[in-house]
C-alpha cells in the first residue's frame, strides 16, 4: 500500500484526507496518548491498533488532528466515544451526534464504540460514566438512542458493558440480559470490557464466569483490558474502582484467556488513561495480550464478523 504517497498527493490537491483500510483483526492495541507519538513513530514494524477518545478530537483543528492523521496513516484506529449518554433518559445531543459523524467520516476508523452509561443530565455534563437501571423502559430508551446513533454515523457501533458501584432497586433484568437484548434489537456489536466484568462482579458479589457464560460472545467485536484500584464499601468489603491507572490484574488476564479460548481472537485494547507510563511499558501490556491472541489464532476466528 502506497499510503503515504497517496495521502500527500491528496493534501496537495486540497481533497479530504482518505486513509487506507487497515484491519485490527487478531491484534492487540493501546490507548493512543499524544505524549507517545514520537516513540511510536521511532519504532518500525507493527504496533497494533490505537484507540482514541472521540471527544478529544472534536476541536476544529490544531495539533490533535495532526497526531491522529499521523497515527491513522499507518495503523488501524478505534474511535471510542465516552459522552454520547446513550444510557440516559433524555434525547441525544444532536450537535454531538453531528460532531461524531464528522469524525467518523474524516478518519474512517476500523472500530467505533460507545458506552452503556450516561454522563449528561439536562445541560450539565458530569464527566463520568454513570449507571442506569435495567428495566423495560430503559431498554427501550437505550435501543432508540443506539438506533439514532447508528443511523447518524451510517454504521453499527460496539456497545461497552459498564463497571458499576451501585445497583438500582428498580432493575428488573440482569446486565447480560439487558445487553443481549440491546444487541438483538439494534444489531449493534459489543465491546466486552473484561476488567469491567471483574470490577462489577467483585462489587456486586456475582460470578464473573457466570456473567461471561451469559454474555453473547459471538457479538463481541472488541475487548478492553485495564487496571483497577481497591477501596472498601460501607461494610468494609472490597470495592474495586475502574481506574485505568495501572497494569491489568492477574485475575483479569485469566478471565481474558477464557474469553479468547471460547470466542477466538478479537481486537484487544489495553486502556491506560491516568498515571500514563512510558510507551515501552504500555506496549509490553499489549504484547502480553498479543501473546494470548496468537496462542488462539486460527481457533474459531470470528472477529471479521464484527471487526
Amino acid at each position, binding site marked *: 500500500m502506497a499510503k503515504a504517497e497517496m495521502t500527500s498527493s491528496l493534501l496537495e490537491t486540497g481533497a479530504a484526507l482518505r486513509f487506507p483500510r487497515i484491519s485490527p483483526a487478531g491484534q492487540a492495541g493501546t490507548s493512543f496518548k499524544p505524549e507517545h507519538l514520537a516513540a511510536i513513530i521511532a519504532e518500525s514494524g507493527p504496533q497494533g491498533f490505537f484507540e482514541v477518545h472521540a471527544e478529544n478530537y472534536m*476541536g476544529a483543528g490544531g495539533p490533535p488532528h495532526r497526531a491522529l492523521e499521523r497515527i491513522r496513516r499507518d495503523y488501524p484506529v478505534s474511535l471510542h466515544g465516552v459522552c454520547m449518554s446513550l444510557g440516559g*433518559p433524555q434525547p441525544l445531543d444532536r450537535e454531538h451526534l453531528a460532531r461524531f459523524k464528522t469524525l467518523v467520516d474524516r478518519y474512517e476508523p476500523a472500530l467505533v464504540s460507545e458506552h452503556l452509561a450516561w454522563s449528561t443530565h439536562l445541560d450539565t455534563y458530569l464527566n463520568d460514566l454513570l449507571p442506569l437501571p435495567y428495566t423495560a423502559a430503559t431498554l427501550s430508551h437505550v435501543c432508540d438512542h443506539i438506533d439514532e446513533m447508528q443511523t447518524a454515523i451510517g454504521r453499527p457501533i460496539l456497545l461497552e458493558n459498564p463497571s458499576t458501584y451501585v445497583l*438500582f432497586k428498580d432493575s428488573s433484568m440482569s446486565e447480560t440480559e439487558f445487553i443481549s437484548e440491546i444487541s438483538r434489537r439494534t444489531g449493534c456489536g459489543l465491546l466486552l470490557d473484561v476488567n469491567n466484568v471483574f470490577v462489577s462482579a467483585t462489587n456486586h458479589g456475582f460470578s464473573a464466569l457466570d456473567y461471561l457464560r451469559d454474555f453473547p460472545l459471538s457479538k463481541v467485536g472488541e475487548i478492553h483490558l485495564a487496571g483497577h484500584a481497591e*477501596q472498601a464499601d460501607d461494610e468494609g468489603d472490597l470495592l474495586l474502582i475502574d481506574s485505568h491507572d495501572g497494569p491489568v490484574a492477574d485475575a483479569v488476564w485469566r478471565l481474558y484467556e477464557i474469553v479468547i479460548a471460547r470466542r477466538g481472537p478479537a481486537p484487544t485494547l489495553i486502556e491506560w488513561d491516568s498515571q500514563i507510563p512510558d510507551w515501552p511499558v504500555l506496549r509490553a501490556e499489549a504484547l502480553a495480550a498479543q501473546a494470548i491472541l496468537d496462542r488462539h489464532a486460527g481457533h474459531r476466528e470470528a472477529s471479521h464478523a464484527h471487526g
Partner: protein
Amino acid sequence: MPTADILPLPRADFAGPFSAALLFPDAETPALVTGPRGKRAEKRYDVYRNNVTVSLIAALASIFPAVERITGPDFFRAMARFHIRETPPTSPLLFDYGRNFADFIDRYAYAQDMPWLSDVARIERLWLDSYHAADAPVLAAEALAAVPPDDLPALRFQPHPAARLVSSPHPAITIFAMNRGSGPVGRVENQSEHGLIARIDDEVTVRRLHSGVFAFLRALFDGDPLAAAAATALDADAAFDLPGAIGEMISAGAFSHIRTEADHVEHA
C-alpha cells in the same frame, strides 16, 4: 424521607434523582440506589461523586496549569471545586470548559491579593482556544509584497483562526510565561502588558507587543484597513514603526489572508 403525597417518578426518570447529589457531598445518597443484597450504598455512590469532582478539577488543572502552579495544588483544588459546583460544564467537550473561571477568580475571596491571577487564567483559556482553532495557512510575506502600492492604504488583513489578542493592566503575560513550565520564577515589573497568541506549525506562542503594535493589530483584527490601523497605532505610540510591525505580525502568524478593496481577491 419520601412521603405518601409525593407522586412516584416515571420509571425512566432515574437521571434527575441520581445526579442531584453528585456535586454536593452533604446531600443524601439517592434513595433509588443500593448495594447488593441490601448492602448500603453511601460509599458506593461516593465513588461517582468523587469521579465527577476529581475529574473536573483535573480538567481545569489541565487548562490552567500556570494558575495551578501559582496557587499551589491545594489552593487550586479548593478554588476549582467551588467553581465546578457553581458552573459545571455544559458541553461534553472539556477543552471548552473553564470559560467563566477567570471571572470566578475575580470574585474568589482568597484570590483577592493576586489581582493579576484572573488575567493569567484568561491567557491560558485563550491559549487552548488557539491550540484547537481551525487549521489555515498563515499569510506569506510574498503575498503582501505583490500588492500594488496604490492598494496598500485600503488593504485589510484577515486574522488567522488561531490568533488571539490579550491585554492586561498587570504583567499577566510575563507571569503566565514564567509559570507555564517548571523553570524558576523571578521578580516581575508591575506594568500593563499586551500580547498576541498565535499558532505556527502547530506551535502556540504568546508574545508581548509594544502598545503601538498592539493598537495596530487590534484595529486590523477589528476590520480597519491598513491606513486607518496605522493612524490608530501612531496615536497610541508616536514611535510606531509600520513596516517593522507588519513584518513582525506576519512572521508571528497573526494573519491568514489579505484583501484589497479593488479585486476582492484573497491572497494567502
